[in-house]
């Protein structure tokens, strides 16, 4: 079956990243230098070709961008300054919009204004809700504690959390299903036996927890560590506020060694240090992967930082028994968190937390299935 080329595609892709990759003349140096590419998943050159020719269907089933960690060696090696590393980043954004069946992701990526507008609307909504429903005058409790749970009862917040979780999970899971359809089901060249899903899933889980593939990119240890620190902090915080809010959000201030406080410090440190490291990097463009920044990168980092900052403020005001200041900080804390979670978890940058391990999972499935097919072909027929 022949596919029709589309020269307009390059233009469409421009909203997702650097450019149109006209410079590339396919010497293949990028694929040769890449420490992660392997037989069957040769990137980034093949991706550039698909973009140049506008092969949209091929790109939709293209799992390779999720296997790349943007060490930037390809870009450093490229004799034509075609930025193959940024190409993979652009494709990750594009693929996120491809998997999202609602079309919201594409809008957020394509337009900074749209993204900002959604954020501001959600921000104002949260602030308004607090101003209307919350009582900022609740005094210190009998024990002399700031009564966060009277100001914002964890039962109510938890219910809202679960509602948000349910909605976003629905979108993220259906998007993941869409990714599965695009990558595995639509690829007729390979058929994955059912049992393989159970074998290969452990590799994906192991990777999700350790990000071991990341460390394969040489010279990027600090980057890997910062990323792991930030990622784990966020995941812990997410699990805490969704599932253990009653334990995590207490009026009682525990001693400093209490697991609740230690976890809180870990998460805060991870968010502050991680987001600062990446913001400084993106500002100074001191690494290949920081050279080009999409508006979604900046919004994401700034919100992470503000989230941690407002968290710290709540903590400080609570310890110092300042109820009003603590309540206001709490309001801003949520006013930052809600827009961030809503726009990023299922529709933008944050979804790579799901797509990356899934991409690796699918790639390993394909690899195993191909190897099996190959062995069957080689086996003597009886």
């Amino acid at each position, binding site marked *: *079956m*022949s*596919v*029709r*080329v589309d*020269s*307009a595609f*390059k233009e469409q892709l421009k909203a997702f990243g650097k450019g*149109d990759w*006209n*410079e590339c*003349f*396919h010497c293949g140096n990028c694929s040769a230098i890449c420490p992660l590419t392997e037989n069957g998943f040769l990137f980034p050159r*093949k991706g550039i*070709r*698909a973009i*140049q*020719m*506008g*092969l949209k269907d*091929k790109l939709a089933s293209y799992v390779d961008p999720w296997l790349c960690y943007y060490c930037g060696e390809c870009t450093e090696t490229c004799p034509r300054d075609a930025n193959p590393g940024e190409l993979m980043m652009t494709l990750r954004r594009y693929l996120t919009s491809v998997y999202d069946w609602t079309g919201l992701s594409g809008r957020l990526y394509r337009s900074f204004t749209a993204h900002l507008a959604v954020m501001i609307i959600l921000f104002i909504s949260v602030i308004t809700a607090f101003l209307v429903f919350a009582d900022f005058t609740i005094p210190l409790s009998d024990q002399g504690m700031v009564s966060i749970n009277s100001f914002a009862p964890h039962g109510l917040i938890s219910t809202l959390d679960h509602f948000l979780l349910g909605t976003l999970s629905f979108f993220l899971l259906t998007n993941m299903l869409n990714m599965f359809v695009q990558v595995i089901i639509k690829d007729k060249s390979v058929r994955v036996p059912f049992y393989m899903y159970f074998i290969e899933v452990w590799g994906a889980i192991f990777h999700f927890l350790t990000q071991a593939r990341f460390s394969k990119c040489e010279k990027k240890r600090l980057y890997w560590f910062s990323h792991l620190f930030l990622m784990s902090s966020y995941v812990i915080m997410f699990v805490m506020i969704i599932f253990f809010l009653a334990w995590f959000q207490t009026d009682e201030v525990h001693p400093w060694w209490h697991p609740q406080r230690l976890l809180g410090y870990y998460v805060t440190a991870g968010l502050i240090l991680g987001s600062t490291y990446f913001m400084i990097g993106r500002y100074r463009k001191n690494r290949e992967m920081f050279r080009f920044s999409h508006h979604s990168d900046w919004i994401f980092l700034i919100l992470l930082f503000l989230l941690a900052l407002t968290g710290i403020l709540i903590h400080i005001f609570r310890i110092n028994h300042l109820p009003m200041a603590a309540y206001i900080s709490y309001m801003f804390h949520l006013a930052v968190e809600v827009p961030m979670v809503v726009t990023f978890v299922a529709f933008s940058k944050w979804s790579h937390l799901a797509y990356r391990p899934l991409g690796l999972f699918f790639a390993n499935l394909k690899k195993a299935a191909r190897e099996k097919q190959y062995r069957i072909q080689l086996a003597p027929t009886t």
Partner: protein
Amino acid sequence: MFKMEEKRIGVYVCWCGTNISRMVDVEAVAEEIGRLPDVVIAKNYKYMCYDPGQDLIVRDIREHKLNRVVVSACSPRIHELTFRKALANAGLNPYMFEMANIREQVSWVHTDREEATRKAKALVAAAVTRVRFHEALDKRKVEINPATLIIGAGISGISAALEIADSGRKVFLVEKMKYPGGHTADIDLSFPYMVSARQLLEPKIRRLLNHPYIELFTESRIAEVYGYVGNFEAEVENNLGIKTKISFGNIIVATGLKPFNPSSVNLHGYGKLPDVYTSVEFEKMLVSGEIKTRDGRMPKNIAIIHCVGSRHNDYHEYCSRICCMLGLKYCNQIRSALPDANIYDIYADMRSFGKSCEELYTQTATRNIMFLNFDQRQGLPQITKACPDEHCEMLIEFKERLSNESIIVPADMIILLVAMEAREDAREVAHAVGVSMCGNDFYIEKHPKLDPVATTTDGVYIVGSCQGPKDITDSVAQARAAASRVLATIAAGTVEVEVTTAVVNEDVCCGCQTCIKVCPYKAISFNQEKKVSVVNEILCKGCGTCGSTCPTGAIKSRHFTDLQILSQITGLMEMELVTEL
């Protein structure tokens, strides 16, 4: 009584570093040859062709009064002239020399040192026996007619004509078409600098038409050329049948080429689909100033297909050399004219060699052109008419090499970059002026690297694309190179001609004219009065064909007489016998 001259032969065995000495016992060869009669001295030396080696010969000729020299070394094609010059320097006739090739014919091709040495001895002995019968020959000189005939008034012919005429020498410029200018006159912009070809050409033509030393014959052709270097004659005939007799000393052939007709490439649908154009037709469209389809619409999708008729076993195997750059030029011109059009450049291999050409490719790549690569071995792009729901006129289908995908490219206009091939009358012209052609009907130069504009016929030069596909730059360079070659011979006044020619013994010739039929250089004519063949020694190249064909033995090839060759064979056989006994 006729006193036989005493023969004093010097023999030199070259080592050629280790090239010869590794496989041939050079000392043994020299020692054994030294015992042969008439051999005064036999020496071996590391590099005979180096100055000390040549000095050795010169010194020995003077000291030992040598009158014949044999050097056994490499092929005479490489160093025969070197050693002949050494003989001349020592005051000896250069033809009193013979070379035995013990490198290409012995050391490089054998693996048994003993056998190789034996063969080397035999070859040197043969040379010694032959050189005994060498005769002194003298170079001949002929006067040069300072006029020049140039066939073809394209950019090459015009450039050569102006170069020669500007030095005050007469030029006859013969053009088949009505106007001078050739293909260059049909070109819009020239690559890689995007300069208007007309701006390049027009001042040249204006100068040409008013030049006092250039006589231009348009709509004319040359029937047959008679004569030899320095003294040619021909008749120019125009389309009215008027004949003009001209005489000249040199000929420059600048007949150019013609574009390939792609109708024979069925897959491309040329001639059947209205909007498939050749590069020549598209060039005319560019000159007219508007890119439009046959029904007057502006094309949205334009595809350029490379290598049409080039680099393909079914058409021409050679690369037509200019099409890639032509394609890039079109990409740029179309992009400038139609900023929103989709441009597809479908190429087999992009060959942007030379100054500013790769730069043009790089720059073109930034102008939103989709470059698609096909593999000719896996089939040519197939062009079909599109259905109305495809929103384009035609579809091009092929396997794209860099992505390994079978793809469809939409197109409203397709430009075929057709091959450049020899003109249909190339053979006629070749016959008239006496140049040889290669398998593709392009003319063959004397040496592809060292003598690229001369031919094996003295006084006849080939320039521009009659020698092979070429761009304007290379054509003009060749034209001016040939002009300087012509001017150099004119300045010399005379030209040396080969003396190792054939001579007819009129007493023995029976008048059968077999020699006239076999002579490849048209050098033999028949004297009706005496009823004998006559060799024109200036046209004769001394190939020896006539001598070996002559049934009565009336033709002698100088320097290759029967006596010389038979004695060489005798020498070869005798040495074989001696060593075997």
